[in-house]
């Protein structure tokens, strides 16, 4: 499903106009109002009556956009994931999505200075050659929902193919991957999909691809030699969650060989308390904010532990009931939950980061040339930080 037609207006800064990719992106929006603006022009007033999801801004990035994932409070474990924020915001509508409230900007932003971004990326990775990075473009937006993001993804796949110590993760709820299938990825790109049971997709993930098409796309990606990842995030509590998630995992493994899956993340619904009213306002028919949620140690609302624990346990049990199961981890969960579900917990965020590398090294021979050493992760630093 192409989401370009969801945009009503496209603003292009004068400097972005000089980037070679800008013309290619604009050609994908022939029917939208296009307006060139000075770099410092504040167009907020022009679009104040429009949803930022319907306004596109093509601009050059100011400052660093290759960074560490902000994660959450130290009370919960995070995986030291790194992000490239080339796309900011998403044209799709998921009831639980934090982006629609988190991003305080009047438009969906696509940065066009690809060369500078890749230069920044390479120079930052070079500073830690012994560490293996996972870097994604789907943190502040969908990696493949807009043509401007796909164009970036295509170039990024080629760039990462030549970086020995990093994997690119393209995370999406779309299925438009045809343009990626024949690229030289050298095994260094992971195509990832967020997964939820079809009933939940239908009721909460509006304008996204349905479950089976997502899995079919993943199947094609695997056939093209890509590694895969899946994100069970957010896991939502429904009265029939056991049946829904059991069937989802059955469906996943019917389509996908677990051995092709680099990792699977689990995370239950969570959001800042201030977002609750906004969800209700925007999606008056949704019931998800009314579940048994408590304020967690990071101040966010999340399902009470007695509620999310059985969900995690069942999902984990099902996901690992196959030979050579994928690497499974929690996104923003407590040590207690790790221990109660997996029977073990990483010692720290850097340890979890190392566990990823170790798993990739073991499960995908040749992907990482040298056996990962814990010390390089303990001494590692985020890509937005300078070495001490």
């Amino acid at each position, binding site marked *: 499903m192409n989401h370009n037609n969801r945009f009503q207006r496209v603003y292009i800064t004068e400097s972005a106009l000089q980037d070679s990719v800008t013309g290619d992106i604009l050609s994908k929006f022939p029917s939208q109002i296009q307006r060139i603006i000075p770099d410092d022009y504040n167009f907020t007033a022009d679009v104040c009556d429009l949803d930022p999801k319907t306004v596109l801004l093509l601009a050059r990035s100011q400052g660093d956009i290759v960074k560490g994932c902000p994660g959450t409070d130290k*009370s919960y474990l995070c995986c030291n994931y790194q992000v490239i924020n080339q796309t900011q915001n998403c044209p799709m509508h998921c009831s639980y999505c934090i982006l629609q409230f988190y991003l305080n900007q009047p438009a969906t932003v696509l940065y066009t200075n690809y060369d500078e971004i890749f230069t920044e990326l390479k120079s930052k990775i070079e500073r830690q050659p012994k560490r293996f990075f996972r870097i994604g473009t789907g943190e502040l937006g969908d990696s493949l929902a807009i043509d401007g993001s796909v164009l970036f993804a295509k170039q990024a796949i080629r760039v990462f193919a030549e970086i020995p110590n990093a994997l690119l993760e393209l995370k999406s709820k779309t299925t438009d991957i045809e343009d990626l299938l024949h690229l030289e990825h050298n095994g260094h790109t992971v195509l990832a999909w967020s997964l939820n049971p079809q009933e939940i997709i239908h009721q909460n993930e509006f304008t996204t691809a349905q479950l089976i098409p997502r899995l079919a796309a993943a199947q094609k990606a695997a056939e093209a030699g890509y590694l895969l990842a899946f994100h069970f995030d957010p896991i939502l509590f429904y009265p029939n969650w056991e049946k829904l998630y059991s069937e989802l995992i059955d469906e996943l493994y019917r389509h996908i060989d677990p051995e092709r899956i680099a990792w699977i993340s689990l995370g239950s619904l969570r959001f800042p308390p201030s977002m609750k009213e906004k969800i209700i306002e925007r999606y008056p028919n949704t*019931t998800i*904010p*009314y*579940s*048994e949620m*408590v*304020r*967690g*140690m990071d101040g966010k609302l999340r399902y*009470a*532990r*007695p*509620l999310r624990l059985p969900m995690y346990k069942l999902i984990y049990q099902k996901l690992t009931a196959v030979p050579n199961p994928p690497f499974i981890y929690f996104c923003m969960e*407590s040590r*207690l939950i790790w221990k109660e579900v997996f029977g073990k917990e990483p010692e720290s965020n850097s340890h979890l980061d190392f566990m990823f590398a170790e798993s990739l090294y073991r499960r995908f021979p040749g992907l990482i040339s040298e056996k990962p050493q814990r010390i390089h992760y303990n001494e590692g630093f985020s890509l937005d930080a300078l070495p001490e």
Partner: protein
Amino acid sequence: MKPAAKPAVLTVDQIDKSDHHYDLFLSDSDEYHFTDTIIVQKTVRGYRIVDGFEIINAGLPDHYQFPAVCFPENAALLTILRTLVETRVKKCPLFPIETARVFQMTRDNGISDIDLMEILFPVLGLKADTMLIDRYLQLLFLTKPIVTYLIKKNASVKTWLFITKFTRDDQSDLHDLIRLRPTLSVFEEIVSSLYEIQKRESLTQKELLTQLQWTTLLTDENLEPKERIRQIRNAVFKRQFPLLSVHKDNVEAALRRISLPENAGIHYDDTFEKKELQLHWRLNTETDIDKMRNFYTDEAIRKIHLLLDTL
């Protein structure tokens, strides 16, 4: 040039006491003082009060003179309202229901929302948002006991607007609770929980309240009002957080099995995000220390283990 208000000295008999066109605000206990300037508008029948209705009941003789600010007959409604609101908010912020009445008046008189937002919103301290006008207008459908309660408790705008989510019929169910004079925070907790449970379980309020034995509990004359509130609060909480409640009950049962001396306490995180116990001792005397020493038997430790496991 638009006609402006001018100072004047009027006598009481010039006031048209039957004209309550601008009587939008809640009467307060303020009395009329002889230095008070009231705001009026000239009409064919005399002078209509815009602000200062307390003068009517001040028992002043007809010939009594008082200072006034007088709008001409053809003054624009929005100009008068702006002056009126400015005058009122200088005394104290408007109650949301009062703001709603002002909005209603502008709508009734064909004033556009854009003009309303431009002229009155800054005075009211509101951000331009047409949706907000409609939301405020919903306040006019609140039942009288609810309005009285919210005013008395000086409830926030958020709470006022939240209650508009309840139909008038459903609001009347809340009167049983209001009669018991709950604190505002308890009232807010209970009504927001009721609303959330209804949404989550697709129930009507009547169905939910029947299941909760709402009326029976709240009107039980054998119980003190405080106890009735406590019981309904518990019932609502258990319904909203069923798993958490069961978990908590199990933990409390495990806790009760431990024979704690009266100078000791065991605390746990009631969100259950942490699996952790905190033991506190109050030690003043030798006896207190003895009690602590004697407490740590194998049996007590086993029960503490059990409690920790239950968490």
